[in-house]
């Protein structure tokens, strides 16, 4: 009996102290004022009196920078998710239809990049997209363009980076769904005279909807808080909310506003996350 409690207590205490407690800290510091001190914020209770207020949140609403970053994050995450779906769906479908040993090999090829450094794979796109980069050099050599295209430090580069990084997260749930698809349903549809386009649109696609939604959430949720990709590939005006939080903390050293940004970001992802959790429990 005594040992059983140690087994339960160890992970509970670790996660309680280093996961749950930090959030209470963020919430607390988002309510206090910045001061020039170490640490750079005031106390929530002074002489027993509650001194917190929503000033930091009011500040987020009053400056268009934060609202823009919030909307930009949503827009970039949404568009990237759509492109990841458009590229990932045929890949997942092809893998699900492939015969062994090809299926295993293709799945392995999808997962392998995930194991190599994320930072370095994003860095690789700088070399591909920049003014005298690989893509521009090839296009000029082919005679398609005379002047290099401006691709790096644009929203386009951020879309490419996000789609590229999170594509495996789209493909794997889609594949798991499509591989279970009953071939008899497709045959029945064909026997009843449906064209293969009809069969796809009216049988395969509706049946794969849970996979589509799960994959989309797995791309959308991390894309919202992304920092590295907009910082390396985006332009100075590609302000996503994760980058704003980083700048508030590291450049402006305003820990209280950074905390308020964190809480605002949580509010944005809590809906999709809860939905994802529910749908995974159902599966």
């Amino acid at each position, binding site marked *: 009996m005594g040992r059983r409690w140690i087994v*339960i207590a160890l*992970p509970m205490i670790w996660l309680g102290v280093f996961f749950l407690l*930090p959030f209470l800290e963020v919430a607390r510091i988002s309510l206090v004022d910045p001061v020039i001190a170490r640490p750079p914020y005031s106390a929530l209770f002074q002489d027993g009196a509650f001194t917190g207020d929503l000033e930091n949140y009011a500040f987020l609403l009053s400056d268009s920078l934060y609202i823009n970053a919030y909307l930009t994050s949503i827009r970039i995450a949404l568009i990237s998710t759509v492109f990841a779906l458009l590229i990932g769906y045929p890949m997942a479908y092809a893998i699900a239809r492939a015969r062994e040993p090809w299926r295993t090999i293709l799945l392995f090829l999808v997962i392998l990049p995930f194991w190599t450094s994320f930072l370095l794979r994003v860095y690789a796109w700088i070399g591909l997209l920049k003014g005298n980069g690989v893509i521009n050099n090839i296009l000029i050599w082919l005679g398609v363009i005379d002047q290099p295209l401006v691709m790096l430090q644009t929203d386009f580069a951020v879309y490419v980076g996000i789609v590229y990084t999170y594509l495996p997260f789209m493909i794997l749930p889609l594949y798991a769904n499509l591989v279970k698809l009953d071939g008899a349903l497709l045959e029945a549809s064909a026997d009843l005279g449906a064209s293969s386009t009809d069969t796809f649109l009216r049988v395969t696609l509706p049946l794969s909807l849970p996979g589509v939604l799960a994959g989309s959430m797995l791309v959308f949720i991390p894309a919202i808080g992304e920092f590295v990709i907009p910082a390396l590939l985006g332009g100075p005006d590609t302000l996503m909310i994760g980058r704003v939080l980083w700048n508030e903390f590291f450049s402006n050293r305003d820990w209280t506003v950074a905390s308020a940004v964190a809480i605002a970001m949580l509010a944005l992802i809590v809906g999709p996350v809860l939905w994802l959790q529910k749908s995974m429990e159902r599966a």
Partner: protein
Amino acid sequence: MTRAWFLWLTAGFGFVFLYVPIVSLVIFSFNESQLVTVWGGFSTKWYGELLRDPQILGAAWISLQVGVVSATLAVVLGTLAAYVLVRIGGFWGRPVLRGMTTAPLVMPEVITGLSLLLLFVSMERALGWPAGRGMLTIVIAHTTFCLAYVAVVVQSRLVDMDDSLEEAARDLGATPVRVFFDVTLPMIAPALVAGWLLAFTLSLDDLVVASFTSGPGASTLPMVIFSKVRLGVSPDINALATLIILVVGIGVAVAGVLLKRR
């Protein structure tokens, strides 16, 4: 037939998209020219440059230490969490533990990093521990988010595993501790190896959480890489990337063979 052709074409495009950046990293690591993307002849000079760069070597050493310690702690704690969630039913804290082991998986890194830093600062003020920030605080932070991944991997193995063997051992009079070490642990060992490798990779790769929780003198490899590539491409980073891809490729292949043999 034409449709199948179209399917394989679009899927093929996807695979090209996944591998072109990696292949170009490797090719240009052997480029003589400083310009990275303009070919100036074959050369291995950037590898030599890399191996003589004390900043990168020092950061790599810190990252390796942090990775090994965090992955090991994460396997211990994550396995305990998974065991509690799958095998010990009905205690009050279960939903809380379940929430705390899945939430880190979807938490934006900037929030994890910021929140842990704020906690470390407050703890230092209140308790005097951890004194300052450096490798210890990075290890704590990495262990926390890695243990969630380990818990997922081990949980799925425990769920698939028949618990009749554990029951039999109990019926034959083994204590719960012996059942765990003699029966459960050997059966979930492949999941522990996979979980450790996953945690190690995640720790080695993390830039954001480490940047928030590290202190002066404890720059991890991703932090050094980030500060270098922020200023533009540099060929020695290509060489570093090629070495990492090589090590990971061999590691994944070996792990695949080992898991298949079981």
